């Protein structure tokens, strides 16, 4: 459907031997693709051999740690292994912990600040870059580049840019005759600065997903709407946005999960401060375990976060599959 020959971000990448037979090619061999009786007894241990390494690693480095974490959440302990069993006391503490309330509120502000902003900017870029513009392949690549940088790298770069004394942000403001802003050093602006930074890392991702979806909208539909007299804005509102609804719901879930798990950038830029102004839930878990040495409480907090994530991750499973199908 699209005639462009750009090497980047096209909608139908060739996948030799891969995606093409995905849905239809099960017929000839029948069944769900298990080894048939021809390979007899031998095949019984074969799958276990193939999945064995993953299974052992899962057992040792995922399952056992999770079980220990659950056990910890019922203990009062500063160091591992010497805890006292305290029943559900850690969970009871949560209900009256003012810092937890702050952390939850911060998490909400952070999530609400980052998710819709990144998605709207990403959508706008995708719509603009879906047109036949000169140099659009290069532009797409430029918008995507921030995704490549590690959270820590983003954190140090942005700490430097927003440094109140020598940072380029304030230097530029002062060159324009304006007053510099405190950015990360004031509880009033720190969260806003973090939101800005995280949106910056996220727009390329939203753009790519939206581009994939836009390219799958048949151009005949748009032309038909145009012939029927729909204006640019109307087509956007009545045709494009509704057609993108499934993509929007996928992106919403993915972005919420990303925001709930965002750690590195915040850790490097503010460490949760000043005060507790940027302490989100995941920061608070880390802080309780390592700064406050309350392992048991930290484990309980972590499981609370897990419960929140559970909802979104179940949806994410679904979303990931759909996101894959889009490209």
């Amino acid at each position: 459907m699209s005639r462009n020959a750009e090497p980047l971000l096209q909608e139908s990448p060739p996948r030799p031997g891969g995606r093409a037979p995905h849905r239809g090619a099960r017929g000839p061999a029948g069944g769900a693709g298990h080894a048939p009786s021809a390979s007899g007894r031998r095949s019984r241990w074969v799958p276990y051999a193939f999945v064995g390494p993953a299974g052992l690693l899962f057992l040792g480095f995922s399952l056992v740690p999770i079980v220990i974490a659950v056990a910890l959440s019922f203990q009062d302990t500063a160091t591992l292994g010497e805890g006292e069993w305290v029943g559900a006391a850690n969970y009871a503490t949560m209900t009256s912990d003012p810092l937890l309330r702050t952390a939850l509120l911060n998490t909400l502000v952070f999530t609400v600040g980052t998710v819709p902003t990144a998605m709207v900017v990403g959508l706008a870029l995708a719509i603009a870059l879906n047109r036949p513009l000169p140099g659009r392949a290069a532009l797409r690549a430029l918008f995507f580049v921030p995704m490549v940088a590690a959270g820590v790298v983003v954190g140090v770069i942005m700490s430097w840019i927003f440094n109140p004394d020598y940072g380029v942000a304030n230097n530029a403001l002062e060159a324009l005759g304006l007053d510099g802003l405190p950015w990360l050093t004031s509880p009033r602006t720190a969260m806003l600065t973090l939101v800005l930074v995280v949106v910056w890392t996220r727009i390329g991702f939203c753009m790519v997903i939206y581009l994939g979806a836009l390219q799958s909208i048949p151009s005949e539909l748009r032309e038909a709407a145009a012939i029927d007299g729909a204006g640019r804005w109307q087509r956007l509102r009545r045709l494009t946005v509704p057609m993108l609804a499934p993509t929007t719901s996928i992106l919403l879930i993915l972005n919420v999960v990303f925001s709930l798990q965002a750690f590195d950038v915040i850790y490097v830029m503010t460490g949760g401060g000043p005060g507790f102004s940027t302490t989100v839930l995941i920061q608070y878990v880390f802080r309780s375990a390592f700064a406050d040495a309350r392992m048991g409480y930290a484990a309980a907090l972590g499981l609370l976060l897990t419960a929140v994530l559970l909802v979104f991750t179940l949806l994410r499973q679904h979303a990931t599959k759909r996101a894959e199908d889009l490209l």
Partner: protein
Amino acid sequence: MTALTTSGVRDAAAPGRAAGRPGRPSRSPRERAGRRRRWLLTAALTAAAMVVVFPLYWMVVSALTPGGQSQSSEFYLWPDAPTTANFGEVFAQQPVWRWLGNSFFIAGVGTALSVCVSLGAGYALAKFRFRGRGLLYAAFLVTIMIPIQVTLVPSFLITARLGLVDSPWAVILPTLFDVVGIFIARQFMLGVPDALIEAARLDGAGEVRTFLRVVLPTCGPLVGVLVILGFMNRWNDFLWPLVVLQGNENLTVPVGLSTLTNSPAFTSPWGAVMAVATVAVVPLLVVFLVFQRTFVQGIASTGIK
């Protein structure tokens, strides 16, 4: 712009797009307006792209700026006297080469082993029916929702028991199990035709041979995505290496970088930090530029990060 057109609504509806479309009668005033719009949009997008890329540009510029200018409230976009002194200083004072070596070893070996594990697991889960398959797969998937902070302490305990703390293997081993990788591998392997596998078996090929010689060669794009995502995530990983690596010589680049901030030991503290940040980003930037398509596909299809 629409005032000039004759056919009313229809033209008003698609002024921007029509210009580039072949097969329509050419209407020169409209076409010119369309072209102008397009260039305006391109200019606006280019400006936006500049803003988006600026932080990375600034990282490189700051790495090249001498301390005097960088520690001032002067506004500049390019240093008066660019220098590589910051690189020289930080490489001399800190074991940056070691950090790079550690990062390459951990990301390289970790990715290679992890891709093998994921391919095997994906193959078994996609192409065999065996007892416990559903339960195993569900259990794998559940681990996605457990944030690393929850299992950080127990995982550290296990790693310490194995006597691995401060060794690169302490980073590699616990991250070999990659649920997302297994998930992608399984999804892809579902698409490998059963007939292909059957034919190999009928020809008398063993199971391992079938996998290596028949199944794997169809999985080129899959391996590309797994390798690039695996490498990127390991190269950028921070929290786990921060916890299990201790000696300054043994750190990875991101962890080393995080220890440098606010270090007064350099003539240009931020210049030194930006020099290491540049070194940390460049390898991935090269990978991104060379394998753009796989890179973008991989990230878009899994929603990592």
